[in-house]
């Protein structure tokens, strides 16, 4: 049995963080980070939230203390992650960030300094991940499907229907039809074929969505398999093109709320709107604020991934990172988990076991 001890939030620290969260979040480091700084790459889903937490952390730990930096998933490329590191293609997505962490590249100016100290990840640990890394959950997100407002989309799709749509195989619905699924086969009125679009292949949101709907092989009708569509953005040209009225696209609910409710990346959602899955809305209103529906089935954790300083049986967070990410047991929370205001301000739900391996 896997046991986990739930951590009580440190109210005082959380309140203190509220006061400094007002500072404008930075995207990327303003200059090349020093070798002593703590640097990460990876997920698009958590990039803006980590930008804010980096800003908050650095305000509370001014120079010359080590600074916390988070390279966004998208931007100019290549990048130099730290002083003395070689120029590298900017890692875009959870998978790319984890791969960059696992590369264990070091600075030429300080052979003890890794070029990357952590990876942002919106996917959880997988059986194929090595034991040399550990996943530290810090917030709750959800993923649902989205569609253009005013299009042919229905209000709700089941995960079985989504699997048929992304398999381009209507026969999975048992209706006697074959080929791409049409709206009238899933409760709509239009006879137009649904056009499934998928984010780029390093996206943790893509991995979670496909796993959740039970899809193991994308059909040929799925667009975006050329890795030209960034996750959690509805302003790609494909969303306003000829297929606009029939597109379905997975979307992080937290990022959507950040864009539409919290003015973080406002407008990036384009005209895409979130839809229900398996009969449940991905959002709910709690105290006048629209938040992720904690009863939604496609909820997930989002993580920061660090090197394992312990063993496979007893993983541990490197001591130099514990002030940021906690000690992995919940005894030491770390700055990320103490900065709950940033987590909720970017649309995520707080996770009671924040930072616990």
């Amino acid at each position: 049995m896997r046991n986990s001890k739930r951590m009580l939030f440190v109210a005082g620290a959380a309140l203190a963080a509220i006061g400094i969260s007002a500072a404008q979040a930075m995207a990327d480091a303003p200059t090349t980070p020093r070798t002593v700084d703590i640097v990460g790459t990876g997920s698009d889903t958590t990039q803006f939230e980590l930008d804010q937490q980096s800003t908050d952390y650095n305000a509370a730990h001014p120079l010359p203390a080590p600074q916390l930096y988070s390279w966004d998933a998208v931007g100019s490329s290549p990048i130099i992650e730290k002083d003395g590191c070689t120029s590298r293609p900017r890692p875009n997505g959870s998978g790319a960030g984890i791969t960059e962490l696992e590369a264990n590249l070091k600075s030429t100016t300080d052979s003890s300094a890794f070029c990357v100290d952590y990876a942002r990840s919106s996917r959880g640990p997988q059986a194929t991940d090595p034991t040399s890394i550990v996943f530290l959950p810090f917030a709750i997100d959800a993923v649902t499907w989205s569609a253009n407002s005013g299009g042919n989309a229905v209000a709700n799709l089941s995960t079985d229907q989504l699997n048929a749509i992304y398999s381009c195989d209507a026969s999975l619905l048992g209706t006697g039809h074959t080929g791409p699924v049409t709206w009238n086969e899933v409760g709509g009125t239009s006879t137009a074929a649904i056009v499934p679009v998928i984010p780029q292949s390093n996206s943790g949101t893509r991995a979670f969505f496909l796993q959740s709907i039970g899809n193991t092989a994308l059909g040929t009708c799925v667009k975006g398999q050329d890795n030209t569509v960034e996750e959690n953005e509805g302003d790609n040209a494909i969303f306003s093109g000829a297929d606009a009225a029939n597109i379905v696209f997975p979307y992080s609910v937290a990022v959507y709320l950040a864009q539409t409710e919290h003015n973080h990346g406002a407008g990036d959602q384009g005209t895409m709107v979130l839809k229900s899955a398996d009969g449940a809305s991905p959002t709910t209103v709690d105290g006048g604020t629209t938040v992720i529906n904690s009863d939604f089935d496609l909820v997930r954790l989002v993580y920061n991934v660090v090197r394992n300083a312990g063993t496979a049986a007893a993983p541990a967070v490197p001591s130099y990172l514990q002030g940021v990410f906690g000690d992995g047991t919940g005894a030491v929370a770390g700055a990320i988990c103490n900065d709950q205001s940033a987590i909720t301000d970017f649309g995520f739900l707080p996770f009671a076991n924040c930072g616990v391996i």
Partner: protein
Amino acid sequence: MSRSVAARVSATVAAIGAVAATLLATGGPAAAADPAATGTVTVSVPLSVEAALAKAGLAEVPGSPASVGYDNTNRAVTESFPVTAGTAKVSTLTGHLDLAGKLLIVNFTNGKCVTFTSVVFDLFRDQITAVPNGSASPVVLFDTIGTRHAGTAGTTNTFTASAVQVHAAGASYLDAALGTSYFVAGQNAGSFSSSWQFTG
């Protein structure tokens, strides 16, 4: 508490439970949209808590198909509610469990009582809610706090909490409905354990 007092309280609670079980109808079905599940949620109420309730002229009793028992090892009255459906996930600590049965709370000093149905354990919010008779809105009765453990073994999910406390809204509601000032926020109400499997 002496053993004789404990035994007396236990016997009293058991007797009330038997009467209440007869009086109360079977709990209603869970919300249709939630996946079917089986399992049990148990709140263990220490005899000291039961004695304090009895001293104030109060008693709480689960109604069928929920049941009352006695844990001699821990000297606690156990109130067990069958899990009928839910969305609770231990991996994310989200969702809820729909529970069958009712909860009757009686004030013997003035004859007032309140019956709660639609009992729900909200794993995300760490709360037990229920709908009082004559109302359509749930009341947050208890918070599950303290040391909490979540786990899975095969298809069985478990969640435990070392303490259960009366929630502020629950205390206010109970005091008003029962004509007492006994209930206060943060009051000890026992400990919590649960296990469930999805069957749908």
